[in-house]
């Protein structure tokens, strides 16, 4: 690939780029979809191409192509420079990048069992067994089970001499059971409706033990059809990791993206309430128990890599320390504006997209002292909420509303009856300030989502979230009937 990246960088430089970088990406995907015991879809996909991003007089341009030839490298580099010059016609503040050292080396996701080497028949049989354990339960209308794997080979080169090669592998799988009675539709999923995902090999899929979990899960979906509606009102809630990871994603991950703060996502995803004055003043984001870190080195996380897509080395960046807002997800362009170096959070969705500030692994650190069971036992009256069902948050990441698949009543320190259709809502910092218990290592688990949307044209990001369970006081549960 070096010939191609050298050619693209040389051409861009000759044509006037002050800085240029090129990424060549080959991506392999494999997926299995099963619906109610039927293998509905098995697919594989492969895409390969390269992109060239240039700075010309402080203005950005980017072009990309699936054709990997020297002639195309020249054409794409020239196109990127022409686009950058067009950008220059509406430029008020030229871009300045931080001065990170050139990046060199290789990185590969550690794994034990290559998912692309496991026979397809084996993977189908494993998923089918799990799906049938759920679909065989009386009262289940349909089940949906999925397995997917993705591998990306990525070469990055820049005019400062950087050259890195990375091979990153992600796998995910899930079972979802659906029960329907008239207008009532209930579902239970494990580990998550979108799949439990890790940067790992097939050993992660085996560790999920879907077949053992699927039957009881399906029975719970059926039981929810006749469960009482979750009562509304202000109460104590305990969030299972299967819901808490998305709470972290939406209400901490996104608002700490520094591009949002500077308005460059305003036209699509929105901005952020965590403005830079809040960093300077030491804004209280949460209670003393809340410490959140963006850790691109965390084992198993889908936000783990060797270098980001600007060639910045993976690192752990504190976002919230003991409740105080302390840092952002940042890039080489945005970090200098707050007097810092890039935190290495620029990630692109393939060869045909520019890197954007994305979450790496946004982890809520466990606190020693209480297991999740201890927290339940310590709760006299409240609700235990598990498995996300829907999510929504405003464009500055303040007002959120989540629905979970299930709520369990807590009385006298014990989990009891089921409630259906639970929702809870709040304002981000008020919610995190109400956190009065965070589980220890025993419930700390790496989860994540493979479908984090951002940018125009749209990009889908794979991000990780390691979280334990946690308790929050005086939270509004339910909105009217829901």
């Amino acid at each position, binding site marked *: 690939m070096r010939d191609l990246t050298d050619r693209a960088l040389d051409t861009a430089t000759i044509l006037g780029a002050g800085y240029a970088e090129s990424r060549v990406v080959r991506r392999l995907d494999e997926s299995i979809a099963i619906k109610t015991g039927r293998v509905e879809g098995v697919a*594989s996909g492969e895409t390969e191409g390269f992109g060239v991003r240039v700075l010309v007089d402080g203005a*950005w341009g980017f072009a990309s*192509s699936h054709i990997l030839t020297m002639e195309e490298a020249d054409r794409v580099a020239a196109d990127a420079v022409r686009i950058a010059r067009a950008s220059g016609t509406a430029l*008020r503040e030229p871009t300045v990048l931080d001065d990170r050292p050139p990046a060199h080396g290789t990185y590969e996701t550690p794994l034990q069992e290559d998912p692309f080497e496991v026979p397809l028949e084996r993977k189908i049989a494993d998923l089918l067994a799990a799906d049938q354990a759920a679909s065989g339960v009386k009262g289940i209308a349909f089940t949906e089970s999925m397995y997917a794997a993705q591998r990306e080979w990525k070469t990055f080169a820049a005019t400062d001499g950087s050259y890195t090669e990375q091979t990153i592998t992600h796998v995910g799988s899930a079972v979802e059971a659906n029960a329907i009675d008239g207008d009532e539709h209930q579902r239970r999923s494990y580990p998550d409706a979108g799949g439990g995902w890790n940067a790992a090999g097939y050993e992660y899929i085996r560790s999920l033990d879907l077949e053992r979990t699927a039957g009881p899960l399906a029975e719970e979906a059926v039981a929810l059809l006749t469960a009482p509606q979750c009562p509304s009102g202000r109460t104590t809630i305990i969030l299972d990791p299967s819901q808490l990871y998305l709470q972290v994603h939406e209400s901490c991950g996104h608002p700490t993206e520094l591009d949002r703060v500077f308005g460059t996502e305003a036209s699509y995803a929105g901005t952020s309430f965590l403005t830079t004055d809040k960093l300077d003043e030491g804004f209280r984001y949460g209670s003393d128990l809340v410490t959140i870190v963006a850790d691109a080195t965390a084992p198993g996380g889908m936000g783990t890599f060797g270098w980001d897509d600007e060639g910045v080395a993976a690192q752990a960046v504190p976002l919230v320390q003991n409740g105080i807002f302390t840092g952002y997800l940042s890039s080489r362009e945005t970090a200098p504006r707050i007097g810092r170096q890039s935190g290495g959070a620029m990630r692109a969705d393939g060869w045909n997209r520019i890197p954007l500030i994305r979450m790496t692994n946004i982890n809520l650190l466990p606190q020693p002292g209480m297991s999740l069971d201890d927290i339940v036992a310590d709760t006299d009256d409240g609700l235990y909420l598990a498995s996300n069902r829907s999510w929504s948050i*405003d*464009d500055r990441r303040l007002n959120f509303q989540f629905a979970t698949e299930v709520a369990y009543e807590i009385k006298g320190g014990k989990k009891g009856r089921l409630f259906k259709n639970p929702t809870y809502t709040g304002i981000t910092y008020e919610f995190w300030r109400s956190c009065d218990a965070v589980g220890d290592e025993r419930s700390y688990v790496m989860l994540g989502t493979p479908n984090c949307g951002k940018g125009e044209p749209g990009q889908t990001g794979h991000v990780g979230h390691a979280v334990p369970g946690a308790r929050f006081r005086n939270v509004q549960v339910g*909105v009217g009937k*829901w």
Partner: protein
Amino acid sequence: MNDERAHDALALAERALGHAMREGPSEAEVLVMTEDAALTRFANSQIHQNVAETNVVVNLRFVVGTRVGVASSGRTDEEGLKRLAASAAAIARVVEELPDWAGLPEPTPIEEIVEAYAPATAEASPELRADGVRAVIAAADTAGVTAYGSFSTGTETTAVANSKGIRAGGTRTVAQLLTVSMGPGGGTGYAESASVDATAIDAAAIGRESADKARATANAVTIEAGDYPVVLEEYAVVDLLDMLGYLGFSALAVQEERSFVEIGKRIGSDLVTIVDDGRDPAGLPMAFDYEGVPKQRVTLLERGVCAGVVYDVQTAAKDGVTSTGHGLPAPNAYGPFPLNGVMAAGDASRDELIGGLDRGLLVTRFHYTNPVHPKLAIITGMTRDGTFLVEGGRIVGPVKNLRFTQSYLDAMAGVVGVARERKTLKGFLGGVVVPALRLEGWTFTGTTEH
């Protein structure tokens, strides 16, 4: 029409089909999608991202009896196509049989849509997009606000070739300009336009509409959550069509009993008629679907009554009907999808819609909507970029954004006014044509700080 692109894509599909047939399938289908797309993005009244791509995807559906394997690749060389065929064939050999597999579709004549393609969009340069962006920024400067947004232009070619004889190819163009304005006192505004022809988009007018709204929403006040009559501007109405299409108007959703649709059941007021029409030149037309089946006009809601759903080949076979041309690329767990929603116009002006509100809210657009209860189409989301209190038929002033938790079915039933003007906008997956609406009730369930 750019026949050369479609011709090239069909030739590629033929080559891929040839490699597939040598692997011995009982049926095979190749879908080729090529794209030349560019997008100029601006923020803080300057261009900050500016991108272009040339891409191709070759998707192969390989069938052995009732076993189906799917593989896709970005490679177009002979070795790459050969590998694609081998990969799909290998999958088809190990998957289970689909007892109700209906087979691939037979050829049906496809009528070209001349209006789907505009040379000006296909030839749009970075300089043309920058011109449009500068016009938006100039409008923002004049109003004393800051401009954010994007201007995209793209040419998409789709070709389908299958072993039953389908040979479908077509090229269309799509352009979209959208902008968010931010002004003093926390004011924000929004405007958008989509068109087949990039030069038909009036960038300055879009810039002025958004900038004026940002000025008008300065110093918004908090209003208590609760039930209010509303006027929804076109940008908000898009979400109603998208969500109802996603949750209900797909044959697969009905077959799986997760849809609210029952043919003949009333869910909307007499004023609501929605069709899906891929051939409507007012939208962003496409002549055939990703299975090579021509798009039919399907009436989804006729004067408030459920009239139909969209089909692909597999769901149509199950119901003993023919595909309406709404198949998505395989593998497709979502089933068929209405991509070209068109809501019938009414007879009211925008001022008349607002004038009909005794005390209610005017909503510009929604943000981050998501189903809370899919079967009842209960959705939560936020308002954004311009929410106003209306009293006595007149806009009193801006209010801070609100969260809603609202059944979109109840919303359809509560439509009491429909605008005669409509806008062409980009929806979740395709182009939609929508009017503004007045509804007798909307349930707001929370407030926020801006």
